[in-house]
C-alpha cells in the first residue's frame, strides 16, 4: 500500500515548473493581508511591474500589471511618454521572453490547472495555429488603438483590454475584492461591464478546461509582446542543431501552437526536452544549462552536474528568503503601504476634523445667520443620515469652498481623478446638473491627492463650470467623506449638510436628478416651512428660543411669529390676512401647534392664485376639511387622481375645500381639460413654496388632508380613489 502511494506520489508530485509557477503566484500576491481586509496594497513597491499577468487591483498584488501599466501609459501618451513601462517590457523580454508565460505567469498556472480537469481535450491543429495570431489583433486593437484613441482624442484613460476582456482583472481583481464582506459597497457599482466580463471570464475558463492555455494561445497580448523577444531572450529553450535529427517530435508533442522550438508561440515550458530522444534540446540561461535530458548530459561530468544541483539549491534558498522578506515587508512593515488614517471603516471623523467642526460651530454660533435654520443635530460622520464634518478647501478658480457656508443648498461632492476613466466620463453630467440647479445646488469635484499630472492643465480645455479642487497630502476631504482609492465616489448632502447618498459608483443624469429631489425632500418641517436658503432675507433669533421671527420675501409674502401669541400675516397677490382676531380656540391651537408637513403637524398657511384667477388661502378653509393634491402633468397617476378628486368635490363643495397644486417644473404643460375642472388648480411658484410646505417632491402625486383645525391628518405619496377619500373624510368628520 505504502509502495503504491509512493509510486502515485512520484507520478503526481508537482514538477519544478509547477513549483516555480506557484512561487511566482505567491510572490506577486504576497500582500496576504489584503485578502483578509479586502484592501489592495498601496506601497511604493507597486511601482515595479511584475513580469507575468497579474491584476494590480487584486487584494494580494504587490506589483503592477505590465499590460495594465502599458495601457495606462498609452492613454496618457499625449502628455507623457511611457518610457518606463516600455523599458520594463524590453528588459523582461530580453531576459526571459515567453519563458515568463511558461514559468512565471499566475494566469498561465490557473489555465494549466483548469486543463487538468479530466475531460476530452481539443488537440492543437492548423486551425488553432491560425487562431494563435488573434492575440496580435487583440494587442493592436484593444491595447493600442482604442486606448490611444480615447487618450489622445478624448483625454480619457480607457484601458480597453482590461475594461472589455481581461479575465485576470475579473477573477483576481473583481472577485478578489467582492468576495470580501468589507467590500459589500462595491456591489453597487456593478453593471453591464461586470456582467460582460464575468461571462467572458467563464467562457475563457471553460475553454481552458478543454483547450490547453486557450487564453495564452489566442488572446493574451502580453504573450504576443514577449513572443517577439523569444529569439533574443537570454533564458529559454535552445536547440543544438548538431544533435537534432529533424524528427519533429518536439513540435508534435508540444501543446502550444509552435512550428519550431523557440518560435514566438513557444512558452519555454521545457516539456520538449524530455521528448527529444537525441538530447538536442536544453534550457539555458546564457551559456549556463538549466535543464537537459540524460542524453544531452552524457558529455557532462559529475562535477558539472553536482555544481548545477548546488546552484539550484542555493537559488531555491535565496528565492524562499526573498519571499519571506517580501511577505514580512508588505504585510507588517512597509510604512508606505499603510493607510494614513484608519477612517475607511470607522465613520468617526478624526480629531482634527472634529476640532475644526467645533471651531466652525463656535464661530457661527455667535452669529445668528440664515444658515442656523439649516443646522443639523445629526451626529458627525460620512454615512447616510449623518452630518458631514465641515471642511474648507481652495478651488482652482481661487475661490474658497467652505462646506458650512453652503447650508441651505444641496451639495454634491464628487471624488475623482484624471486617471480614472469613469470619473472623467461622468464629470459632464455634474456640469449639466450644476447648470440646471445653479441657484440651489453646488458641486465640488475633488481630485485625489494622487495626481501624476497637472490637474488644472487637464481641465484647462474642458468647458466644465464646477468647483474643482485637489485634496491635500493628508487626504482630508477623502478622509471626511470616506473616500478611498476606488473611484468615482459621489456624496450628496441635503440642505442641512446631512449625507443622503455616499457611494462608490458612476452616476447618470437621471440619478443625479433623483438624488437632488431626494435631498430637497429630506428636509425637516422647520426648514421647509421657510423655503430654501436663498429665499431668506432676515432671521432673528433661533428656534430654540420661544421668541423668534422669520421674515421671507418669497413671492412677497411675510410670515412672522412672536412669542407666545401667534400672529400670521401674509401679503401676496394683493391679499392680506390677519389672524389675530381668530376665535380663542384657534389661537390656542396655534399656540400649541408644531408647524410642519407631517401627520399631526399644523400646516402653515399659504395663499396662491388659481388658474381661473381666483385666490386660494388655506386659512380661509378653517372649519372645513381641506384636501391638497400635489400633482404634475407628466404623471399619469396625477391626472387620474385629479378626476377622482373633481368628482368628489362637485358633490361636496359645501363640506370640503380642495386645491390641486402643480409643481413649477413643466407647469406650461398643464392640459386644457385640467383647467376645465371644478376644483381650484394652481401652479406653485418657482421656489416650489407650497410643495415645500407640504413636504412634496418631484415624486407626485401626493395627497394631504387637513382637518378643520388646520392639522394634517393625512400626507402620503400617491392618489386616493373617490371611495378612499370619502372614507377618510367621513372618519375625520366623525372624529
Amino acid at each position, binding site marked *: 500500500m505504502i509502495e503504491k502511494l509512493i509510486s502515485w506520489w512520484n507520478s503526481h508530485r508537482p514538477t519544478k515548473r509547477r513549483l516555480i509557477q506557484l512561487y511566482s503566484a505567491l510572490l506577486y500576491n504576497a500582500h496576504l493581508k489584503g485578502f483578509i481586509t479586502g484592501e*489592495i*496594497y498601496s506601497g511604493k513597491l507597486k*511601482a515595479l511591474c511584475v513580469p507575468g499577468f497579474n491584476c*494590480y*487591483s487584486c487584494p494580494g498584488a504587490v506589483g*503592477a*500589471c505590465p499590460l*495594465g*501599466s502599458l495601457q495606462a*501609459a498609452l492613454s496618457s501618451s499625449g502628455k*507623457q511618454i511611457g*518610457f*518606463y513601462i516600455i*523599458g*520594463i517590457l*524590453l*528588459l523582461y523580454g*530580453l531576459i526571459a521572453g515567453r519563458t515568463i508565460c511558461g514559468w512565471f505567469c499566475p494566469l498561465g498556472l490557473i489555465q494549466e490547472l483548469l486543463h487538468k*480537469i*479530466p475531460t*476530452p*481535450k481539443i488537440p*492543437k*491543429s*492548423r486551425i488553432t*495555429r491560425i487562431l494563435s495570431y488573434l492575440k496580435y489583433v487583440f494587442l493592436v486593437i484593444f491595447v493600442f488603438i482604442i486606448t490611444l484613441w480615447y487618450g489622445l482624442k478624448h483625454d480619457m484613460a480607457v484601458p480597453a483590454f*482590461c*475594461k472589455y476582456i481581461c479575465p485576470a*482583472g475579473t477573477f483576481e481583481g*473583481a472577485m478578489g475584492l*467582492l468576495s470580501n464582506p468589507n467590500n459589500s459597497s*462595491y*456591489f*453597487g*457599482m*456593478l453593471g*453591464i*461591464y*461586470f*456582467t460582460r466580463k464575468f*461571462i467572458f471570464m467563464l467562457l475563457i475558463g*471553460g475553454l481552458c478546461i478543454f483547450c490547453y492555455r486557450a487564453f495564452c494561445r489566442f488572446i493574451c497580448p502580453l504573450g504576443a509582446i514577449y513572443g517577439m523577444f523569444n529569439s*533574443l531572450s537570454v533564458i529559454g529553450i535552445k*536547440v543544438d*542543431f548538431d544533435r*537534432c535529427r529533424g524528427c519533429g517530435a518536439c*513540435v*508534435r508533442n508540444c501543446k502550444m501552437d509552435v512550428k*519550431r522550438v*523557440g518560435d514566438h508561440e513557444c512558452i519555454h515550458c521545457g516539456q520538449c526536452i524530455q521528448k527529444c530522444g537525441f538530447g538536442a534540446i536544453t534550457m539555458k540561461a546564457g551559456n549556463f544549462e538549466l535543464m537537459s535530458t540524460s542524453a544531452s548530459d552524457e558529455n557532462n561530468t559529475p562535477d558539472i552536474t553536482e555544481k548545477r544541483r548546488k546552484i539550484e539549491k542555493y537559488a531555491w534558498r535565496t528565492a524562499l528568503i526573498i519571499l519571506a522578506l517580501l511577505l514580512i515587508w508588505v504585510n507588517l512593515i512597509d510604512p508606505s503601504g499603510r493607510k494614513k488614517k484608519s477612517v475607511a471603516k470607522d465613520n468617526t471623523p478624526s480629531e482634527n476634523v472634529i476640532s475644526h467642526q467645533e471651531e466652525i460651530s463656535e464661530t457661527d454660533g455667535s452669529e445668528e445667520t440664515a444658515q442656523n435654520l439649516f443646522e443639523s443635530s445629526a451626529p458627525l460622520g460620512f454615512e447616510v443620515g449623518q452630518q458631514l464634518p465641515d471642511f474648507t478647501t481652495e478651488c482652482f478658480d481661487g475661490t474658497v469652498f467652505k462646506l458650512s457656508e453652503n447650508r441651505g443648498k444641496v451639495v454634491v461632492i464628487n471624488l475623482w481623478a484624471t*486617471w*480614472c476613466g*469613469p470619473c472623467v466620463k461622468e464629470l459632464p453630467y455634474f456640469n449639466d446638473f450644476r447648470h440646471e440647479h445653479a441657484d440651489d445646488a453646488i458641486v465640488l469635484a475633488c481630485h485625489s491627492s494622487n495626481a501624476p*499630472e497637472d490637474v488644472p492643465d487637464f481641465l484647462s480645455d474642458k468647458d466644465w463650470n464646477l468647483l474643482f479642487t485637489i485634496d491635500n497630502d493628508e487626504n482630508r476631504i477623502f478622509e471626511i467623506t470616506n473616500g*478611498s482609492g*476606488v473611484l468615482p465616489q459621489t456624496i450628496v448632502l441635503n440642505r442641512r449638510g446631512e449625507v443622503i*447618498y455616499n457611494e462608490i459608483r*458612476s452616476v*447618470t443624469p437621471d440619478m443625479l436628478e*433623483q438624488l437632488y429631489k431626494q435631498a430637497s425632500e429630506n428636509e425637516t418641517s422647520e426648514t421647509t416651512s421657510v423655503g430654501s436658503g436663498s429665499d431668506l432675507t432676515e432671521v432673528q433669533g433661533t428656534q430654540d428660543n420661544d421668541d423668534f421671527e422669520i421674515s421671507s420675501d418669497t413671492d412677497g409674502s411675510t410670515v412672522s411669529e412672536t412669542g407666545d401669541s401667534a400672529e400670521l400675516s401674509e401679503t401676496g397677490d394683493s391679499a392680506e390676512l390677519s389672524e389675530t382676531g381668530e376665535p380663542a380656540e384657534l389661537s390656542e391651537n396655534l399656540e400649541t401647534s408644531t408647524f410642519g408637513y407631517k401627520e399631526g403637524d399644523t400646516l402653515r398657511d399659504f395663499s396662491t392664485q388659481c388658474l381661473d384667477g381666483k385666490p386660494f388661502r388655506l386659512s380661509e378653509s378653517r372649519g372645513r376639511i381641506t384636501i391638497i393634491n400635489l400633482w404634475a402633468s407628466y404623471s399619469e397617476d396625477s391626472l387620474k387622481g385629479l378626476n377622482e378628486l373633481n368628482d368628489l368635490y362637485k358633490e361636496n363643495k359645501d363640506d370640503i375645500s380642495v386645491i390641486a397644486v402643480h409643481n413649477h417644473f413643466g407647469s406650461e404643460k398643464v392640459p386644457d381639460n385640467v383647467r376645465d375642472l371644478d376644483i381650484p388648480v394652481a401652479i406653485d411658484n418657482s421656489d416650489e413654496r407650497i410643495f415645500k410646505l407640504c413636504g412634496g417632491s418631484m415624486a407626485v402625486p401626493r395627497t394631504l388632508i387637513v382637518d378643520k383645525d388646520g392639522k394634517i391628518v393625512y400626507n402620503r405619496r400617491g392618489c386616493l380613489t373617490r371611495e378612499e377619500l370619502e372614507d377618510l373624510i367621513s372618519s375625520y368628520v366623525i372624529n
Partner: protein
Amino acid sequence: MDKTRLFLIIQSVICILVVLMLSVSAIRIYRDGMARRAENPAESIYTRENFMAAAAPGMLTAFLGLGIAAACWILGIKDEKAEKPAADVDIDMKTGRIKTQLSGKNLQYARLAVLIIAAVFIIAGIINGNMYSILIKAINICTECIGLG
C-alpha cells in the same frame, strides 16, 4: 462505453453546465436589476445577496465537478488522446535552423543594444514621471480594469 469515457463525458457536461448556469445567473441579475433601475435610477443592479443566491446552484455544480475531477485524478482517469503527438501540424525545421543560428557576436550585440535601450528607457521613465504614474494607477483600484466601473 468504458468507464474512462463515461467519466470524461460526465465531467464535460458538468463543466459546460457550470459555465451556462453562472452566465445565465449573471444575465438574469442584470436584467432584473435594470428593470428595478428603470423605476429608480439609484437602485443597485447587483447585491451580495442576489449574487450569492443566483450563483449558488452554479457553484454547487462546480463543486460537484471538482469532486469528480479529484476522483479522476486519484484514479488516473484522463483523456489519453491528449498525450499523443499532434498529427495535423506544420513543422518548420528549416526556418528554425536558420533563425536559431542568430548566435555568437550578432546575438550578443542585439542583446546588448536592447539592454541599453531598456535601461535608458527605464531611467527616462523614472525622470519623466511615468513610473510615478504607474504607481498611482497601481495603488488605486482600477474599477474599469476589473469590470466594476
